[in-house]
């Protein structure tokens, strides 16, 4: 059975859904961050798969149809930066409040 675009997209959707569930349901902020990383990577899989399987439209000839893969590289970079910032904030919060549970971090209200 050949592996088609649909297989990759189903994998991507499953990974995204797992990440989304983790991000909404986890109490530990570190877990939430990891779930978010999972969602990023689900998107990366979809992008690379599109880049590999779809015909290259005329407007994309300049980039030799590599747009999707370049996007994935950018997302990895941004995700790394985001993780660094998020962990730094988390560390600061932990030093203040001695907790990493979202249930106890409820400053963002009126």
């Amino acid at each position, binding site marked *: 059975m050949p592996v088609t675009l649909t297989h990759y997209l189903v994998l991507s959707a499953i990974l995204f859904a797992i990440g989304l569930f983790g991000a909404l349901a986890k109490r530990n902020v570190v877990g939430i961050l990891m779930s978010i990383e999972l969602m990023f990577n689900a998107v990366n899989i979809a992008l690379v798969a599109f880049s590999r399987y779809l015909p290259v439209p005329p407007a994309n000839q300049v980039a030799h149809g590599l747009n999707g893969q370049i996007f994935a590289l950018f997302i990895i970079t941004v995700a790394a930066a985001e993780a660094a910032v998020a962990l730094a904030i988390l560390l600061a919060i932990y030093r203040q409040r001695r907790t990493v549970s979202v*249930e106890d971090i*409820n400053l963002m209200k009126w």
Partner: protein
Amino acid sequence: MPAYLWLVPVLPVIGLILIIVSGRYRPRWSGYLAVAAIGLSFLLAFLALGELIGQGTAGTVSRVETFDWFRVGSISLQLGLIFDPLAAAMLVLVAFISLVVQIYSLGYMAGDPGYTRYFAFMCIFTAAMLGLVLAPNFLQLYIFWELVGLSSYLLIGFWYERPAAAAAAVKAFVTTRLGDLGLLTGILILYSRTGSFDFSQIAAAVRAGNLGTGLLTLAMLLVFLGAVGKSAQFPLHVWLPDAMEGPTPVSALIHAATMVAAGVYLIARTFPLFAASAAAMQVVAWIGGFTALFAATQGLVMTDIKRVLAYSTISQLGYMMLGLGAASLAAGMFHLITHAFFKALLFLAAGAVIHQLGGEQNLLAMGGLFRRMPVTALTFLCGALALAAIPPFSGFWSKDEVIAAVERSGNLALTLLALATSALTAFYIFRAWFLAFLGQPRGALPAGWGRDHAPGHGPGTHRPDAGEASPVLVAPLVILAVLAVGAGLVGSPLFGGAFAAFITGSAEVSPGLDPGLAFLSTAISLVGILLAWAYYGAGWLSAEATARAVRPVYILLVKRYYLDDLYAWLVRRVLLGLSSLLAWFDRQIIDGAVNGLAWLCYAVFGWALTRLQTGRTPSYALGFVVGVVVIVLVAIVFPPAR
């Protein structure tokens, strides 16, 4: 139309600019600059008039030249010049009176700290009036009309450090503003119905019957309200006596040629429109006739020489309105012109007296001045005789033409009113002359009676040894005296009513004087003079005894019919009361509604929405996800158009 005509109003503006530029370094120059600018302006106006007369009947056609000021959509507003006999005559008159007043001011205002400012204001005043005379449409007329109002405000309040002067300036401005509101409304009504500001186009539209009679009457009454304010007619006349707080040459200019003449000129300029509405003409005539008598009665009891003249001006303006209202454009304009000469003369002569007496304006403190200042006394006498309409002085010809016009219009009541006013006029002006120039010097009155007219002339500087004023003050008096005596001849039957033919542009109109009526009015005036002599010259009758005998009337007159008090009461109680009511409504109801709405948003909806903000990050993230899902679903159900 002469090519140089536009220079006539522009020259005083150039003078003004030069005065502003040079004033700081060469304050002495400003007076000469003003005289030079207005002198040139007068010369050009005179040339233009000569050209018009030289053209004969061809010159009487009204010429208009305009250019687009600006366009907004289909509306095009125009500026330009109008030139016809009416404008030409008025132009020469205004420029001439202004020139004489400027020359006089060189002497009168010498040494005043505001010397430069004075001549700068005078230049604006003259320019504004000249521009008003040349305006070919309502819009331009209204612009200059307001400029005249502004400059009169500046000049009446020239000695602004005196509270009375500042108050008088504000009073003049606000009172005339009431009339201006009417004028503006009238102009806008005419514009909304005819689509034009141009005098001739509106007149054509009225002739074609594009305006209903009722609406036309309303519009013309509103325009007349503007003239009532500017020309100090009842009931908006109250600003004019107070305007005496300005320097005397300013009073001369305001009363003779500029400010108050603007209202009469407005009626004359829009005369075809007024002529189309019989009701409006009736109102003009009645207001004029009533004002003439009403103001003359107050002139009887004033002790301030300038106030006597002020009431006389209101009264004479009433005559002009009466003449116009009696459908005689020529009579009204003729009286305007002769009045300009003799009233300017009277004011300047009074100014010379005040100047020489160190600021004394109270008639009761004068007396016996004939021996010390004979030229001033004689020129004042010329003006007084002209005002009293004694033949052959100029006032006789014009006033009797007015009375004859009223009599021809068949209104007996107004004719009698005008004749009665003649007697009062003669009485009050000769009362002033006898009190000031005959008898014995009565000397300074206790402090508080007289008014010091200029800084530097403090109270108590009354100089009983004052002599004749300097030549620069006396020369204008002599020139004006000649004109006050002779100017009436151009309109007299001796010359076949040349003025009436000129101003109306038709040869056959000149019914001239009614000899019987002229005789009657002269006799009435002579009675008035005799009475004045009996009271104040010979002393056969005692003014004090008469005043005691009719004390209620006397008090009423001295209190100026309590009109000022009535207006003050109206403003303080009614207007301010209403205003405070409205202020309460504004603060409590209007602001209350706005503030209440804000409170409702804040307290009710705000409270409900804050409940949504739990502070729990996962619930925010859930909201975020739900939002994205909804957007995606919407995009799928309603795919964006390609």
